[in-house]
């Protein structure tokens, strides 16, 4: 069997191995959605029926999408790489005829595959049954395609951050920073339509604009199919760019890596 296919299956098996992980993947976003609901219920009571171009129902769906998608973040990859470096286990990858980045990518994509499907079903169920929102079929399909692209970007981003452990021993501070950036500038904490227009213009030049915010816009049918496809292409472009940087970092890092023990 192709080694990368095996890494994919390994990740897939890992994702369904522990019940605790499955419970956490479902329960935590639901609790966060309740928190958002409570907060925005209070805001809508004071501020009126439409905020940032969204009604309360649309805003609820917005946070259902962004929060469930936030659960697809792969910040654990930085810890994974950190541990590989500090324990010296990275040597296992160096002695095998495989590409470290490829192994990392396929394993984590496998680990997220079930999660993508679960999150997609949860978005559909919560938005249609609880909020009674009827999404457009074409936009549901686009949203479903957008989810793996989002995961691809996240794996590329957090792998790049994790690879900094060639030079520093603790990368979780930087990983936390990028998680916060995704909360705020990715639109998971507040719709980007509430940001000043000039600021939105700047954000469009970064990959963050095309994360949770754009995905929610697609699901809410607030952007056209063409705009959705362009956003997808931009996000894929950013992911490839990050993967090239990651490959460069591995090349540089391996040269200075020293492992003792046995």
């Amino acid at each position, binding site marked *: 069997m192709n080694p990368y296919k095996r890494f994919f299956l390994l990740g897939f098996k890992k994702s369904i191995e522990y019940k605790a992980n499955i419970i956490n993947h479902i329960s935590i976003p639901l609790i966060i959605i309740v928190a958002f609901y*409570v907060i925005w219920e209070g805001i809508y009571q004071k501020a009126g029926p439409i905020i940032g171009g969204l009604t309360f129902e649309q805003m609820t769906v917005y946070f259902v999408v962004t929060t469930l998608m936030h659960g697809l973040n792969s910040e654990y990859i930085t810890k994974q790489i950190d541990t590989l470096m500090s324990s010296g286990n990275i040597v296992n990858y160096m002695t095998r005829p495989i590409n470290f980045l490829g192994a990392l990518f396929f394993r984590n994509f496998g680990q997220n595959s079930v999660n993508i499907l679960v999150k997609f079903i949860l978005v559909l169920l919560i938005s249609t049954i609880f909020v009674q929102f009827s999404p457009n079929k074409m936009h549901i399909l686009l949203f479903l395609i957008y989810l793996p692209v989002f995961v691809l970007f996240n794996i590329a981003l957090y792998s790049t951050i994790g690879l900094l452990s060639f030079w520093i*021993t603790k990368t979780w501070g930087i990983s936390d920073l990028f998680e916060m950036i995704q909360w705020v500038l990715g639109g998971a904490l507040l719709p980007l339509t509430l940001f000043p227009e000039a600021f939105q213009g700047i954000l469009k030049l970064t990959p963050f604009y095309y994360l949770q915010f754009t995905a929610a816009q697609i699901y809410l049918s607030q952007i056209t199919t063409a705009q959705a496809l362009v956003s997808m292409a931009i996000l894929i472009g950013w992911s490839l760019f990050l993967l090239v940087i990651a490959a460069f970092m591995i090349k540089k890092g391996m040269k200075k890596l020293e492992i003792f023990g046995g």
Partner: protein
Amino acid sequence: MNNKVTHYAKYFKRKCILAYKRLIEYRANFLAALLSQTSYTAIVLIFGWILVGNFGEYLNWGFAQYLIFYALQDIISTSRGAIISAVDFSQMLKTGEFNQILTRPGNPLLNLHLNVDEISLVFLGFTIFILLPVGLYLYPPTLLGATYAFFCCFLVMFLDIMVHIFANSFNFHAKDASNILSKPVKETSYIFRSYPGSIAGDVQKKIFLAIIPIYFVGTLIMPLYQGAPVQKLGLQLAVITSLLFIFISGTIVNWKIGLKKYEGYG
């Protein structure tokens, strides 16, 4: 009693010194942590600026109030992070590493949790020495307001730490239990670290949010700091003290049972 307090004060001081030494040993770590915290703060303050710009009138807040709010909640969250994040109790039980804690003199519960994570120490220093003074300068409190706010800040910080210690104590009964129990609180805290709890409206109706201690920074500590009326002050204090009682007694019971059934190999 006095001896025990002195012992743990010395123990904690030693941990702080060790954390500081680890920090200066790896300069790159220190610089990376400082850079991350500065950028992290900038991002949250951008959020605060947009939030206050859109909804400040409903909160009766300007940006200076948001800055104080952010600094106070950050001190609480980072202090908890500095102490709790430093240990992976579930892993220690699994590998038998917990034996090392048991063989040390003193109370194992305190020996385990009195830890200091060096990166959190940088974060805490940044907030206490840079962010908070700026906030205090822009929006100075009254002496009475500052005293009440300080007292409640300490109470909420203690509650926040206890939530996680209580969750940790369940690791004796099930593997990774703390992960299931404390992660929802930790993740939801992100929301109330950015949105002041008071924005959600009626405190009495939304008192179930008290399970996320950071909620009280917006509903209790900030109004006290501002010298503004506090919604349902008695209720909020009663909920905090009741939760503290539940978490402390629950932790003690779990540890007593857990220590009896613990078997360490290795």
